[in-house]
């Protein structure tokens, strides 16, 4: 019995959100959240890789020997990340320079491996693609919210355009520093887990 596409969507966006419920995959992207544009580029890349690697793993699930599945999944993921990297280098060279090693680090993003392992190995192909895309989207929403706050208070801009009112006021240097990403993510998890989603298990 497989979940319906709607259930998958709801789970990935809210009830099982990769970031604030599962705390997966924050490594590679939290670092670029002081800028909305870079965050968008990174998270779209993650969404692309999660979707397509889920699709591929699901297609090959009968063929992959169980014992070496981790390595096979890693190689599939690495292949898609190389594609993302090449697309970025060709069409968005400036962004590719800023993002630097973080694009390559999508390979070790736990969400991608997690979805391949937990969903794609036991679900039909199209549903796996849908699951990958939606969990990538759930991931994107959270990080973009963090990025909007950091960019607005840290630099007074949104998508690199000055925002009236925020641009003139004194900048919050802490928002541009790494520590603020930890605080904001912690606060977001606190609010969402405390107010909206109560966990039943411990």
């Amino acid at each position, binding site marked *: 019995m497989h979940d319906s596409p709607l259930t998958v969507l709801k789970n990935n966006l809210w009830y099982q959100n990769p970031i604030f419920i599962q*705390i*997966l*995959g*924050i*490594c*590679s992207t*939290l*670092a670029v959240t002081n800028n909305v544009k870079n965050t968008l580029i990174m998270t779209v890349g993650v969404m692309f890789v999660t979707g397509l690697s889920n699709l591929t793993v699901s297609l090959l699930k009968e063929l992959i020997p169980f014992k070496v599945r*981790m*390595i096979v999944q*890693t*190689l599939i993921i*690495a*292949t898609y*990340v*190389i594609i993302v*990297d*090449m697309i970025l280098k060709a069409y968005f060279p400036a962004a590719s320079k800023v993002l*630097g*090693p973080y694009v*390559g*680090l999508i*390979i*070790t*993003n*736990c969400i991608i*491996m997690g979805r391949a392992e937990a969903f794609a190995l036991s679900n039909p192909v199209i549903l796996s693609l849908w699951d990958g895309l939606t969990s990538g989207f759930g991931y994107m929403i959270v990080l973009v919210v963090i990025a909007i706050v950091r960019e607005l208070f840290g630099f007074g801009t949104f998508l690199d355009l000055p925002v009236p009112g925020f641009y003139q006021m004194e900048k919050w240097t*802490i928002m541009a*520093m*790494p*520590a*603020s*990403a*930890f*605080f904001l*993510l*912690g*606060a977001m*998890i*606190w*609010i*969402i*887990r*405390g*107010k909206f989603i*109560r966990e039943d298990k411990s």
Partner: protein
Amino acid sequence: MEAIAPNINPWVLLFASIFTSNILLSNFLGMCSFIAISKDQKSSMGLGMAVTVVLVITVALSWLVRNYILAPFNIEYLGYIVYIGLIAAVVQMLEMLIDRLSPSLYMALGIFLPLITVNCAILGAVLFMVLRSYSLLQSITFALGSGLGWWLAIVLLAAMQKRISKVRLGPGLAGPAITLFLIGFMALAFTGFTAMIPVA
């Protein structure tokens, strides 16, 4: 935070990668296993040690592979696949080697080694090394410093977690949220080191 010059003194680099540009606190790498493991002081010691060992070996090997295989044959675009394969292979070999040579060390490190393949800090250090085109000596000190920095951060966090576990926290705050706040405070404290090294 990305401004380490390529021709920086290896010893300064060692110090910088432990304190001022800590791979975890300023580059956010290796967070997944960090949050999961940091509840227990003993395992965080083990994991920190394992990460340091694997970092030094893989970064040195990736340097050799990159400069003697990938660059001459002009196949640098295959980098990601080669590095991740190399990391997996090194971890696997290290696991077998430690198991054979020192069962007691295997007991201490063994369970952490598989976790390390997907630890972003390892691949991250390799990619930083490539991007900043370090020399071999610089790469090794950078890897050692990053490993020690990660180790220091996880042990400190485990110690803080131990204190905080006695406190009753409201709904939602217990667990990952408070852990992230603790990491945030630690990151803030570590920015105090920034002034010590002019280049980083």
